[in-house]
C-alpha cells in the first residue's frame, strides 16, 4: 500500500517540470497526455503477468509505470508500482500482487483525474 502521506499528484513536481522547460505548458501537456495514453498499456502488461502468475513478466511494466508516474508527480501510483516491481523481482507472486494491482488501478484513476484537473486549470497555449 502507498504511504498515506504521499499526494495523488505532487504539484511541486509539475511546477518543476514547468520551470525546467521554460513554462512550456504545451510540452507539459504533451507529456501528461503521453502518460495518460501510455499507462493503460503498462496496466495491460501487469494484468497479464498477474493472471499468468508470471513474476518476471511483471517487472518491466511495473518498472515503467513506477518511473513514468514519478516523472509526472503521480507519487502514490509510483510507490505501488515500485512494490509490484519488487514483487515481480522476488520471483513469485502471492495474493498481495493481485491486491496491489487493484490498488494501483484505484490510484491510477485518481491520478488521471488529478492530472486532467491540472491541465484544465491551465490556459490552453
Amino acid at each position, binding site marked *: 500500500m502507498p504511504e498515506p502521506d504521499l499526494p495523488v499528484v505532487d504539484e511541486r*513536481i509539475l511546477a518543476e*517540470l514547468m520551470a*525546467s*522547460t521554460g513554462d512550456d505548458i504545451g*510540452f507539459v501537456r*504533451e*507529456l501528461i497526455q*503521453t*502518460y495518460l*495514453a*501510455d499507462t493503460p498499456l503498462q496496466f495491460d502488461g501487469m494484468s497479464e503477468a498477474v493472471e499468468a502468475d508470471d513474476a518476471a513478466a511483471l*517487472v*518491466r511494466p511495473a*518498472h*515503467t509505470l*513506477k*518511473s*513514468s508516474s*514519478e*516523472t*509526472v508527480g503521480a507519487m502514490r501510483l509510483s510507490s505501488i508500482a*515500485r512494490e509490484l516491481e519488487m514483487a515481480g523481482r522476488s520471483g513469485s507472486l502471492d495474493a498481495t500482487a493481485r491486491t496491489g494491482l487493484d490498488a494501483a488501478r484505484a490510484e491510477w484513476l485518481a491520478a488521471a483525474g488529478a492530472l486532467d484537473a491540472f491541465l484544465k486549470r491551465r490556459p490552453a497555449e
Partner: protein
Amino acid sequence: MTAVGKALVVDDSSVNRLLLVRRLEALGLEVMQAENGVLALELLAANPGAVDVVLLDVLMPELDGYETLAAMKADQSTRHIPVLIVSGVEELDSVVRCIELGASDYLTKPINASILAARINASLAAKRLHDVEVESFERQTALNRTIERQKQELSRFLSPQIAALISSPEGEQLLAGHRREVTVAFCDLRGFTHFAEQAGPEEVMTLLSEYHRLMGEAITEQEGTLEHFAGDGVMVFFNDPIPQEDHVERAVRMAVAMRDRFVELASAWRQRGYELGFGVGIAVGDATLGRIGFEGRHDYGAIGNVTILASRLSSQAQAGQILLSPRAQTMLQGLIESESVGELTLKGLTRPVLASNVVGLR
C-alpha cells in the same frame, strides 16, 4: 543553431523518452530515439558515425540495456560511442554491471537537468577527443603509407643504403658532405665497346641486364653501396654511408664472387660469338662523400684520388684480373692470395703504381 552533437535515447517508456528528448534538445543536441535495444542497434547501423552519445535505459523489452550495451561494445563501429545509463535510484547494482560492460557514466531518474547537462558535455568531449584521435591516426597512417611507398620507390632507383640514409634522421648531415676512408671497386667489361658496335640493341640490353643482375647480387651480399651503373661500368664503395670495419675485405669478396659468376655468363656469350672479359680495380683511401650534382638532379657520390685510382686500375686490368692498389694489398695481407703485376703507369697519375692481382681468397 547547429546541433552540438547527436544523441540517441533508448527507453521503452514514451513518457521518459519524451522528457529526455526535450531536455537534450534544450542542450542543443539533435536527438534520435528508439524504444528498445533492437531498434537502437538498427538505428546505429543505419547511421554510422552519426551518434555522439547514447542514453540507455536498462529495463526494456526485446533487447535490454545490458544486451544492447554488450552488442555496441562488441562492434568496432559503435564501441567508442559514450553510453550513459539511465536508471532508477534503486538500480545501482545494474549501473555497476553496465559500467563494467563499458558504459561511460549513469543518470538516475528523475533526471536532474544540470546533472544531465554535465554528463552530456563530458561525454561529448570524450567523443570529440576520440574522433580527433581517430582522424589523426588515420592521417598518420596515410602519411606512413606514402612514406613507405616513396621509400620503396626510392630503393628501386637507389642503393638500399642510400635510400635508407635519405630517410634517416642523420641523413641530411651525411648528404651535406663528409670525409671518410672508403674502399672503392670499379668493374667493367673488356670487349664491351666492340660488342656494342656489333650486336643489336636488344642483345646489348639483354647482356647488360644479365650482367647487372649478377653484379647486383654480389654487391648486395657484401652490402656495398652502388654509386652507379654506366653501361658496363659499375662503381661500388664500402664503409659509407654504413660504417664497415672490414670494408676492404668485403670489396675483395664481392669482386671474387663477381669474377667467379661471370665465367658462366661469358661462356654463354662466347657461344653467341662475343668475347667478353671482366676486370676490377680496387683502391682504399679517403674520399669526400655526399650529395653531388645540381638542384633537381643529385647523386650520392664519392670524390677523391681513391676513386680515380680504382677506375684506372680497372682500365688496366686484363680479363679476369682484380687489381689492388698497394694500400688495399697491404690491408688484405694474410687474407688473400695475390701476385704482383709490377708497376703500372696510370693515366693522370704522376707516379707509377705497384699493383697486384687477387688470385683467390685464403
